[in-house]
């Protein structure tokens, strides 16, 4: 019994729980569901059936498992012309770095279950969330392929466009609560005063910024299939391609968690109690469910939109999104000044 207790203790150790369970295993399950939802929704809106024949009773859900198996067991081809070390390391680093922001995200208000002290968690998690994008550019550069380089350049243009909008709009919640602590931000939304309702401008800016950051559909510019084969991931195959895609989806999940905490009240209808179950597991499940719903909304947009050109997206980002984020910040400060929060 000692062994089992020890293993459980290790698993529920906050850094391991948040980075491995909530950062890697939960997103994998969520992503399979979301990919299925994405394909079925796009098919529904475009008057098709989507994946169907693999398992008609489940609505073709096993198709995604089959795709996963294919990526897992395909041969990984490493071309002769690539810079091998960087080529192999870049997707793995991007995957790890896209999980890392979760270390500064509280999933509960009980201090015993925080991985690190949460005094500056908004700043730390936002800073960490911007690191992984540079490794996509690095992967494209190491691929030594013209499509990869074009995709990587597009990605680097997009980074400059979306990063500042996301950071300003999420920091507006810090301005509203006069605290860089995510726990304070969540606790300020007590009583259904969600910041998405109080400050819709900042929420909209963050939402569109995350769409841009994770190649969501109107802004699926770096990997646009019919222009540059798969963008930065053109030379990747098999498991490495899967790792790339996984990194992109984990990034989307992490951003969804950040938006959930900042604008949708985190674990809030529930008040964390004592002990592991009431204090840590249930609040994490609530946050994950809210983030999953947000991811579903992200993937619904795939069914509606086409793709913007790079110049249109940058135009939109600098002329509309950035001012929108600034207005959100102003609105937040105004609401804090008037004492609405």
């Amino acid at each position, binding site marked *: 019994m000692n062994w089992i207790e020890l293993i459980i203790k290790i698993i529920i150790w906050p850094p391991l729980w948040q980075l491995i369970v909530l950062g890697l295993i939960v997103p994998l399950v969520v992503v399979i569901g979301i990919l299925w939802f994405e394909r079925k929704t796009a098919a*529904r*809106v*475009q*008057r098709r059936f989507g994946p169907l024949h693999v398992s008609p009773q489940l609505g073709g859900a096993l198709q995604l498992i089959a795709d996963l198996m294919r990526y897992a067991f395909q041969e990984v081809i490493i071309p002769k012309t690539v810079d091998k070390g960087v080529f192999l390391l870049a997707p793995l680093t991007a995957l790890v770095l896209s999980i890392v922001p979760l270390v500064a995200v509280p999933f509960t208000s009980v201090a015993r279950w925080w991985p690190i002290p949460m005094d500056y968690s908004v700043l730390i998690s936002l800073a960490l969330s911007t690191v992984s994008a540079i490794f996509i550019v690095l992967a494209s550069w190491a691929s030594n392929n013209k499509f990869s380089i074009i995709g990587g350049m597009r990605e680097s243009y997009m980074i400059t466009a979306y990063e500042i909008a996301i950071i300003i709009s999420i920091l507006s919640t810090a301005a509203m609560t006069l605290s860089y602590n995510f726990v304070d931000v969540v606790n300020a939304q007590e009583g259904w005063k969600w910041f998405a309702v109080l400050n819709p401008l900042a929420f909209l800016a963050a939402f569109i910024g995350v769409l841009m950051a994770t190649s969501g559909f109107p802004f699926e510019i770096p990997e646009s299939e019919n222009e540059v084969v798969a963008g930065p991931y053109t030379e990747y195959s098999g498991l490495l391609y899967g790792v790339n895609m996984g990194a992109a989806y984990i990034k989307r999940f992490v951003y969804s968690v950040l938006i959930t905490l900042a604008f949708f009240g985190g674990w809030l209808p529930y008040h964390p109690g004592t002990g592991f179950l009431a204090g840590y597991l249930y609040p994490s499940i609530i946050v994950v469910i809210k983030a999953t719903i947000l991811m579903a909304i992200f993937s*619904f*947009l795939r*069914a*509606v*939109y086409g793709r913007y050109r790079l110049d249109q997206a940058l135009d939109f980002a600098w002329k*509309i999104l950035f001012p929108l984020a600034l207005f959100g910040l102003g609105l937040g400060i105004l609401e804090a000044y008037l004492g609405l929060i």
Partner: protein
Amino acid sequence: MPPKPVPKTKPKRGIFHKFKGNLEAIIVGVKYFFDPERFTLVYPKEYTKLREGYRGFIVLIKDKCIHCASCARICPASAMKMIRIPQKDPKTGKTKMVMWPVINYQRCIFCGMCVDVCPTEALYHVPYHDVVYENLAEMDIDLESFTKPPEYKTAKEGIPVRYVIDEEKGLVKVPYKEGEEK
């Protein structure tokens, strides 16, 4: 006289028009998400009931044929050709070579000219096209199988459906009811 070029109306500029357009697109998406009108044909389980006069496979009525070879001559794809088969004349008792049309479905474009040109209406179309051949040689039909309708295997168990053009929804798939001919 070619039609006069009409100047394109420019889409309305400005943030609010863009926002409105995006919102409308999302509303249409949500509408279709909750009320999908799919028109995919799930083929073995459904098949399209074809209209009368559909130009499908061609069948020869042997008794009506007068061996005139008009069908072979008019065939634009040279799919139809005449072959000579020795045959006994019932009156004189002599054997002589008689011409009969046969068809090669590798070449046939289903234009229906042979059926139109036939003076005695010895050829007719069957109203279906889902026939499976195992190899290319099988598609070169001999006289014996040209006189019978080809075997129609694939969609026998399915539900017959029809596509109608709806005023509001566009193309719509509706189940076909027997005796509903238009």
